[in-house]
């Protein structure tokens, strides 16, 4: 099988429009001609540790990182790979090599050309330093037959490879800057990054702002449209909302506060959208520590699932802004099982199951006590679960951590009963889904590993197979089978897709709504 760009019709049409035009990012905006100039102000509550996404995952680094660093590929809003630093690419029939043909006019912000050496160096650096080990672990080496051709040699077929080469996951970093032998994770230039993306770095004041300016030598002619992007950092979401209302801030992403969004939706100058998060796939779930003798029983976990009302969470707690998550793969991903076992609210059934599991109600009506931890951002859901599980006789003791590291410490050292958690899919299940369910990833001390200690040889085998299956249809079948097993065994109970929303001023043309949203390059964005 070979995947060559322009493989099917919609992509051909989009490619035909050419690099100079927006890739049908927003239908409404298509009528307008993009205007050059202006400064886009983005509000963000998070302070990134540094700005080099090659060695750091996460939204805080990813948003500015994707502007500073270009990646071999990019994806549109329909999960189609698009040329970016690589003007074309080819996956060999056996899936064991990927050839990237790099653009000849691409230059880093310091004026030096982007070569295949840099690609090889970047992938090597990411492989060694990035927390997502599965992304490039099958890449045995990168051949560089000429400065504009890089060939990735894989040890096994790796269907996630194209996605892994997009957006914030595969920043191409200059070898002549970062290849000086210093520890890549602590490299001083991570705070003064040099990339080949549409915007170059100007200034970063921690906790205050990040300023980027247009790179006049950007390899896509005429892009980017904006002169400057300023990321204004303010921990307080309310202040950011006020900034949006006043018009000081043009765009704010990753907002989940339903009441705030409800208020902003009414503002006639602002657009609130849930588009732009398909690849991130944030799922909020209730994780069970299977080493707990009570929660180790499947019937107990299923009973808890029956006792939780997803509809209440979606409609009442989140004012209709979140959607239920039925399984391990985000519902927006084509691989998700839309017909997974649903566990619709059924208190009688939950009570019956708990009776049968050997936990009858004692005098006070309580069956047993468990602790429930939560990420601070999902506190309201934990507060809902406490009285809700009391209805079926489970006494939930909340543990609200004072800060994130405390929570992470509890969970990664497996010292918890249940916790509300949010885990990202990161586009391909190989990157963001497998880690939660495979036995080999039960690693004490690592957060967002298989902290539930879930182990099922059949699941291990299926995921192993899915990780190397190149035929999309067959791959989906394997994942469907996997989803059938885990939605029955419930190592975690998926509750909802985190209601991430982007709010932007109507002045913003071509808002970033691809599968990576604001974590993708914003070279098409302009101000009306």
């Amino acid at each position: 099988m070979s995947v060559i760009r322009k493989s099917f019709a919609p992509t051909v049409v989009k490619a035909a429009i050419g690099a100079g035009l927006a890739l049908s990012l927003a239908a409404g905006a298509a009528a307008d001609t993009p205007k050059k100039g202006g400064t886009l102000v983005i509000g963000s509550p998070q302070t990134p540790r540094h700005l080099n996404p090659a060695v750091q995952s996460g939204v805080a680094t990813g948003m500015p990182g994707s502007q500073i660093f270009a990646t071999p590929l990019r994806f549109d809003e329909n999960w189609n790979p698009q040329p970016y630093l690589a003007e074309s690419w080819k996956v060999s029939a056996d899936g064991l090599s990927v050839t990237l043909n790099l653009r000849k006019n691409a230059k880093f912000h310091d004026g030096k050309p982007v070569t295949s050496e840099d690609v090889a160096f970047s992938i090597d650096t990411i492989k060694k330093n990035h927390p997502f080990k599965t992304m490039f672990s099958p890449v045995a080496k990168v051949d560089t037959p000429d400065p504009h051709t890089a060939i990735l040699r894989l040890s096994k077929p790796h269907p996630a490879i194209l996605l892994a080469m997009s957006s914030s996951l595969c920043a191409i970093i200059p070898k002549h800057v970062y290849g000086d032998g210093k520890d890549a994770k602590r490299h001083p230039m991570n705070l003064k990054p040099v990339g080949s993306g549409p915007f170059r770095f100007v200034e970063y004041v921690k906790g205050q702002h990040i300023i980027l300016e247009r790179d006049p030598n950007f390899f896509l002619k005429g892009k980017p449209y904006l002169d400057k992007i300023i990321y204004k950092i303010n921990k307080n979401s309310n202040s950011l909302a006020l900034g949006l209302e006043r018009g000081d801030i043009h765009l704010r992403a990753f907002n989940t506060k339903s009441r705030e969004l409800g208020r902003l939706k009414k503002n006639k100058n602002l657009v609130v959208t849930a588009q732009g998060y398909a690849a991130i796939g944030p799922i909020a779930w209730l994780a069970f520590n299977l080493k707990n003798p009570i929660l180790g029983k499947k019937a107990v976990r299923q009973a808890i699932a029956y006792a939780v009302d997803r509809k209440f969470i979606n409609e009442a707690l989140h004012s209709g802004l979140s959607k239920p998550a039925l399984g391990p793969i985000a519902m927006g991903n084509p691989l998700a099982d839309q017909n997974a076992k649903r566990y619709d609210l059924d208190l009688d059934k939950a009570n019956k199951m708990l009776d049968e599991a050997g936990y009858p109600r004692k005098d006070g009506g309580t069956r047993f006590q468990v602790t429930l931890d939560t990420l601070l951002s999902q506190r309201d859901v934990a507060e809902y679960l406490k009285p809700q599980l009391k209805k079926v006789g489970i006494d939930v003791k909340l543990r609200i951590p004072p800060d994130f590291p405390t929570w992470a410490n509890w969970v990664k050292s497996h010292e918890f009963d249940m916790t509300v958690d949010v885990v990202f899919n990161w586009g391909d299940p190989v990157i963001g889904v497998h880690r939660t369910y495979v036995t080999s990833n039960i690693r004490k001390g690592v957060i967002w590993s298989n902290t539930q200690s879930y182990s099922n040889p059949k699941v291990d085998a299926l995921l192993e197979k899915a990780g190397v299956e190149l035929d999309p249809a067959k791959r989906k079948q394997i994942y469907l089978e996997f989803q059938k097993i885990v939605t029955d065994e419930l190592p975690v109970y998926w509750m909802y897709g985190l209601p991430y929303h982007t709010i932007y001023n109507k002045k913003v043309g071509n808002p970033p709504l691809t599968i990576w949203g604001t974590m993708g390059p914003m070279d098409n964005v302009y101000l009306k």
Partner: protein
Amino acid sequence: MADRPAGTDIPVAAAESPAREAWRMFLRNRSAILGLVLLAAIVLVSLFGPPLYGVDPFKIQGAPFTPPGVDPNVPLGTDHVGRDILAGMIGGGRATLAVGASAALMTVAIGLLVGAMAGYYGGLVDEILMRITEFFQVLPSLILAMVLVALFTPSLYMIAIAIGVASWQSTARLARAEFLRLKELEYVKAGRTIGATDKRLIWVVILPNALPPLIVSATLIVGVAILFEAGLSFLGLGDPNIMSWGLMIGSSREYIFDSWWSATFPGAAIFLSVLSVSLIGDGLNDALNPKLRER
């Protein structure tokens, strides 16, 4: 308070009349009576309200963000999860008052012990204890309490202990001053001459006479402790498993723009309780201060 009329310098236990006189003075103070009535009402509601109202303050009683006066089922509305605010108001008083009282007790216990030792023994003991007191005095007390609560898992006990540990210094200084003054008085010296032990002199002879200002300061500390509990909860360091007014404010903090009622009502309750103990404290101060008695 330096020179009392000689007649009052006898142990309280031996004479009933000063206490009765103080009570009479207290009753003459209208604002103190108001505080007492207010506090009595709050205590009564907190003690007997929950079984009478019968709604678990954690239970989801209605749609989230129901404003007050809309749903007769939840007269004061609901919070962001749908919990009944009125149930929280009635049920949350217990924890808040308990933390206030036990933290005040804790404060007085530590403060009295340190102050009494320092004041009575003087010399090196005094030096050491006062340097320790000063060390704690220069630490910002809310931050010290935050650190203590964050180090251990937030629970009501831990919060009471943290508040106690963070705010005993002024009581210690007050107790020390009283002991320094009283230990030089003649009846104490007399006690010593007839061979009374230090223990007896400290706890039986001096302490009862040092109590009035300490009682006043303890009362005021109850108010401070209630505010501390609310402050810690506001910062997310409250005990999430026991309903308290502070917890209600803390968990509604993020939604203040959307539902004023979920933070305002418990806020008002905290305000009234602190006000009532402060009024009582002022009343006690007037009543127990012999200089004001003649007025």
